[in-house]
């Protein structure tokens, strides 16, 4: 069991190392892909409650991530843009919920296109919606 823990620790260290070394692009790509898939789910259903549920997950995850973000490494321009994006997403979602299916679909498209802009701040936004690899950490703790 101790050997297994040791092996998992080593795998974890290597994994973390590879992630920190210029894997940001892959993270961005995977995140964009997942967001796009969720947006497609939103648009594929006719049920308003399902659309709202899916979009709620995305918006909440973005908000939580942005709250926890370390802004010390960001420029004022990036901070301003991320704040701006967060306000737009929240205001937009509130507006879309009042507007019915079509508005929810439009908002989903807006969410997707906001995170496909050629902007530095969008890179930071991806980090806030990344799906963490908690499972591996839990295995290490409990094994």
């Amino acid at each position, binding site marked *: 069991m101790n050997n297994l823990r040791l092996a998992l620790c080593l795998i974890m260290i290597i994994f973390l190392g590879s992630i920190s070394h210029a894997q940001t*692009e892959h993270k*961005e*790509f995977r995140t*964009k*892909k997942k*967001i*796009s*898939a969720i*947006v*497609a789910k939103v*648009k594929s259903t006719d049920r308003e409650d399902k659309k709202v549920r899916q979009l709620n997950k995305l918006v909440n995850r973005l908000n939580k991530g942005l709250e926890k973000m370390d802004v010390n490494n960001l420029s004022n321009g990036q901070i*301003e*843009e991320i704040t*701006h994006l967060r306000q*737009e997403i929240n*205001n*937009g979602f509130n*507006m*879309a919920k009042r507007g019915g299916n079509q508005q929810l679909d*439009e*908002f989903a*498209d*807006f969410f*997707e*296109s*906001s995170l*496909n*802009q*050629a*902007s*530095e701040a969008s*890179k930071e936004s991806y980090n806030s919606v990344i799906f963490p690899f908690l499972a591996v950490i839990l295995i290490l703790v409990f094994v």
Partner: protein
Amino acid sequence: MTYLLSFNQIEHLRKALTLFLFFVITSLCFSFYVKAENLIVFVDQTRNLDYFKDNQLHLIDDDLLHLTQQFHEQSPKRLILIRLQKVNKKKFIGSYQVLGRGLSLQGRFKTKEDLSNIYKEVVNDEIDFLFIGHTMSNKDFELILSQPGQRFGTIMSSACKTGNIETLKVFSKYTNRLLASPENVHLAHFELDNISQTLSGTPNERLFKMLEKSFARLKKFTKSNLVLNVYDLSNALLFNNLDCNGLDEVNQIVLATELELSSYENRSPTSNYFKLNNCKNE
């Protein structure tokens, strides 16, 4: 001795002469157009430029392949495609492909000097410069624009928020005519289809056509604010403490605009009516 022509012969001769004069006048007119013989497409692939729309992945590599397929060794316009892949203090690494006007070359470069030497070999006459990438610092823009060692007929910047005063001043060192946006630009980038036809005519004509086609393309992909402007960078107002509050002044440096605003997005607090960004005194 006189040579008499029949009525039909005179008519025939008159038509042939009209046609001849038409061709002479047309070729003279064309010679006054400033033709952009070269097109540099500079793609900053140090960051991922792939994009999603409706859960469909669009690869920048596919778009660039489609671009190069429009050119060949004998094309009248020369395409110089530069793909920057890695940058650090010592290295400036990427690949190049040159097609048209008798050349078909490709290879790699490892330093800024390598790329400058490549430009010296393949660039002559008037050039247009199309940049595709994420937002860059003004210092980095200065670096990539200075490498060909000459001014451009036009610059097209398919990157976010390059329509700000300080970046316009940098661009003005290299061109009088710019297509750029003070807002974000979707990664779906400016229109690359039939680019030789689009970029024909005078600098203004080239940019007005590119503006129309790129706007139509980006509208299909983005639901955020979409703003594209053609700027006159030869206007001295740009350097005379351009007053962001003065719309009349700002309008003089913007020659054309296409704009579609999103229901979900307001303008940036530092934007001047979608003409310029970084206006802090509104």
